[in-house]
């Protein structure tokens, strides 16, 4: 099912001209050259005189798959995504990053079309740099969440084919996530998954983090950072077994995830700008060896 049309995210997001018969908004947009026609039959596939057969015209959208997850805890947020670049039944590369570190407190992860992802990330990076120059501070999680929504809606009638989760810690140091659809509708939550494995991972997270569908209805114990990381890794390796567009375990039995963990951020030095770039409060969740050595890099491939 088109992610735009999943329960709770249906009709209001679709152009008025598109009735219930037009299920796949992106398929329609592709065939209309990104423009929303209100009249006539707007299917574009043309009769090609040379080939003597029907040929599809240029499709500007491409689904490269991928799944992204964000889980927030009391004072941290885990943002993770797989790295598979899918193209039909082929995998042109197994190592692309879907994550973007926006600042020390906010991380974005994006599934969907890679070219749009790449562009969206470039746009956001520029907007955050501008904010930093203008205000001398980093954008807060809430501000970034609105910026992302506006950026997506700006292209409402030729959308970025991207499905985003945003995670981080807010001004009070509490972890939060935001889940988006392709045109900017969003929701502030504690746990979210989008992308090709959404239907496989989200219910597991609902159960394990939110305590949904628990038989006795007892509240679940809050997960620690380490437990959350392990849960997220398990989610990806399981989804990878059943979804061809999400990568599972690699040859060494490790999930080749791109995991980013934000822990409670704090200001360290007196300089208003430099302090934000001190990465000592980042904890890498993948390998204990990395964690123990206090490595402060912000990217990590298994």
């Amino acid at each position, binding site marked *: 099912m088109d992610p735009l049309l999943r329960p709770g995210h249906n009709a209001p997001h679709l152009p008025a001209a598109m009735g219930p018969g037009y299920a796949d908004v992106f398929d329609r947009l592709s065939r209309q*050259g*990104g*423009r929303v026609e209100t009249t006539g039959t707007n299917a574009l596939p*043309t009769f*090609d005189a*040379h*080939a003597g057969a029907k*040929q599809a*015209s*240029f*499709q*500007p*959208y*491409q689904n*490269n798959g991928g799944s992204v997850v964000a889980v927030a805890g009391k004072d941290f947020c885990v943002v993770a995504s797989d790295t598979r*670049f899918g*193209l039909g039944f*082929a995998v*042109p*590369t197994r*190592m*692309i990053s879907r994550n973007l570190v926006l600042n020390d407190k906010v991380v974005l992860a994006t599934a969907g*079309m*890679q*070219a749009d992802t*790449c*562009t969206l990330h470039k746009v956001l990076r520029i907007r955050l740099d501008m904010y930093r120059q203008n205000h001398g501070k980093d954008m807060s999680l809430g501000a970034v969440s609105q910026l992302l929504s506006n950026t997506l809606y700006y292209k409402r009638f*030729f959308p970025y084919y991207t499905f985003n989760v945003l995670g981080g810690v807010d001004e009070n140091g509490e972890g939060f996530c935001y889940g988006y659809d392709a045109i900017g509708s969003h929701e502030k939550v504690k746990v979210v998954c989008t992308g090709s494995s959404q239907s496989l991972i989200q219910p597991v997270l609902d159960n394990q983090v939110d305590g949904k569908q628990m038989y006795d209805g007892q509240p679940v114990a809050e997960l620690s950072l380490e437990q959350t990381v392990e849960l997220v890794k398990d989610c990806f390796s399981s989804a990878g077994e059943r979804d061809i567009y999400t990568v599972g375990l690699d040859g060494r039995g490790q999930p080749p995830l791109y995991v980013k963990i934000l822990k409670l951020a704090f200001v360290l030095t007196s300089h208003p700008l430099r302090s934000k770039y001190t990465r000592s409060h980042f904890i890498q969740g993948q390998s204990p060896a990395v964690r123990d050595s206090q490595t402060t890099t912000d990217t990590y491939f298994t």
Partner: protein
Amino acid sequence: MKIGGGHVRGGGGAADGPVKVTQTPYVVGSSVLGVKCIDGVVISSDTLASYGSMAKFRKISRIHKVSDACVIGAGGEFSDFQEIKKTMDGVMIEQFCMDDGYVLTPSAIHQYLVRVMYGRRNKMDPLWNQVVMAGFHDGKATLGMVDQVGSNFESEVIATGYGLYMGLPLLRNAYRPDITVAEAKKLLEDIMRVLFYRDARTSNSIQIAAVTKDGVEISEFYDLETKWDYQRFVDGARSGDVSTW
């Protein structure tokens, strides 16, 4: 004066009718392969541009030198590749005219190309190509690709077109981080041969380009050595197979 599908472009006015854009490729090249090596980077392609099932142009180069540190190779619509060559040459000439000694790095050239391709995709007037960019700068090799919708990445091994299905697994198998340019040339030649045997749009005439610390070296066209008397070729792959499948 708007540019894009359905609008009128240029000074012609309404009399010229709606703008026609490349909605489907016509004269196309097939696979391009690439490997990043410890001492450089190598790409290869055959020299055929097909028009449907016709081998229309059999001795054309699908590899182009952009700078002293960078080459590109392309599959897809051949005229669009010629347009890309012109665009990139223009960029390099502009830089030469600046006369400040600065030249775009290979990865900068790659990103430039990505933005050009993505911009054209947004206009619904795509450059219908899969372009592989290979460069060597500051002692490090770069290998990247971009396609007609702007999808792009850098990787150790790259294959486009039919090579994505039949060449890439072979490349991944044979790849080592310490592979040398000499070894990679041999590897790519072997894989081009496999593609020639099974991809009906690949010819036996190929070209290999390497970028190393000494600059760009693009080979002449040369013909692959082929062997057709393998028993499986003679008998057919399904010989002796009595199943109904």
